[in-house]
């Protein structure tokens, strides 16, 4: 069996929408389970006394990364057919900064705001209205910043390709960084939690 199933024509576009809904169900369920329907829990990441955002995100990244790596190695998944967002380093660095500030100001990111909205958080509803307003503003200014946003395209490029390292070595390095990070995050939580 070769995957991704959709890319190999196992089902069509209509069915893919049902798949989207079911995957979303799982995504939303685990976001809420983790406590990510709460802005206070999410914002705590930036005040160091609860590093769940880092722990959940990096555990998910490591799980997904090990999964695609293993399935690729045994020949079940054609990783070349999995869509990679093209890299535009400048806009992605600036966008990340702006989004990080927005996270602390607003208390959510787009995905977690949907989980919070669904469980009745009024601030998440207002946050979502902010997203719509910001999206509209972006659409209005897009023609004038288009050249800047699309400057220096690097295409679909991965860390192993950029650094000229074997895929497996980078995977191993990310796992080590994550494990050391989890240990450090717990130490930081204990330290920050003991402060007045």
């Amino acid at each position, binding site marked *: 069996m070769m995957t991704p199933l959709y890319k190999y024509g196992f089902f069509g576009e209509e069915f893919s929408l049902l798949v989207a809904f079911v995957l979303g169900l799982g995504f939303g369920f*685990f976001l809420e389970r983790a406590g990510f329907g709460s802005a206070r829990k999410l914002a705590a990441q930036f005040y160091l006394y609860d590093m769940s955002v880092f722990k959940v995100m990096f555990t998910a990244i490591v799980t*997904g990364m090990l999964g695609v790596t293993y399935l690729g190695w045994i020949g079940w998944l054609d990783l070349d057919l999995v869509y990679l967002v093209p890299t535009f380093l400048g806009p992605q660095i600036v966008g990340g900064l702006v989004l990080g500030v927005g996270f602390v100001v607003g208390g959510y990111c787009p995905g977690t705001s949907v989980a919070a909205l669904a469980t009745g958080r009024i601030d998440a509803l207002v946050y979502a209205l902010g997203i719509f307003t910001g999206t509209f503003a972006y659409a209005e200014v897009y023609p004038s910043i*288009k050249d800047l946003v699309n400057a220096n395209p690097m295409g679909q490029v991965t860390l192993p390709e950029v650094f000229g390292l074997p895929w497996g070595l980078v995977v191993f390095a990310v796992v080590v960084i994550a494990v050391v990070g989890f240990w450090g995050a717990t130490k930081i939580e204990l330290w920050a939690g003991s402060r007045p």
Partner: protein
Amino acid sequence: MNPRPGSPYLNPYLAGIGLGLVLLAAFVIMGRGLGASGAFSSTLSWLVDLVAPAHAQANEYMSEYLGDGSTHPLKAWLVFEVVGVAAGALLSGILAGRAHLAIEKGPRVSTAVRLLCAFLGGGLMAFGAHLARGCTSGQALTGGALLNLGSWAFMLMVFVGGYAAAWFFRWQWR
């Protein structure tokens, strides 16, 4: 109006493995990862198209989400996925006794100021996500697992931006 505490949250590593397996399923079944901000773009383009169709269709950004008019703008993969996110979160919230009307804020901030910050934060977030071609789901989580260069640069900067702003907004959360 802070929420009542429900059941304890799931262990972050178990929740992370759960999210990671959903992400892996998306790679294997669809050949793409998860996302969120794109659903907001589709919905906004559809709304603007309802109110001011000429304006929406003339706009370079919104017209991409509207397409050639042969399919409904809301018939998009991420819109269906985000509807699933809402349903899944609601299910989890009901099971845990966490689903009820409330406002999330620290003890020192008024409701009005908190809601103003939520609105501004959402606006900033949208701008950042569009610049970066994705948000924490579509870029950091999805691209992180695929070792995407731009995603890792983006993710690092999200933490830098968050920690840089944290001190100035501590009155909102602590």
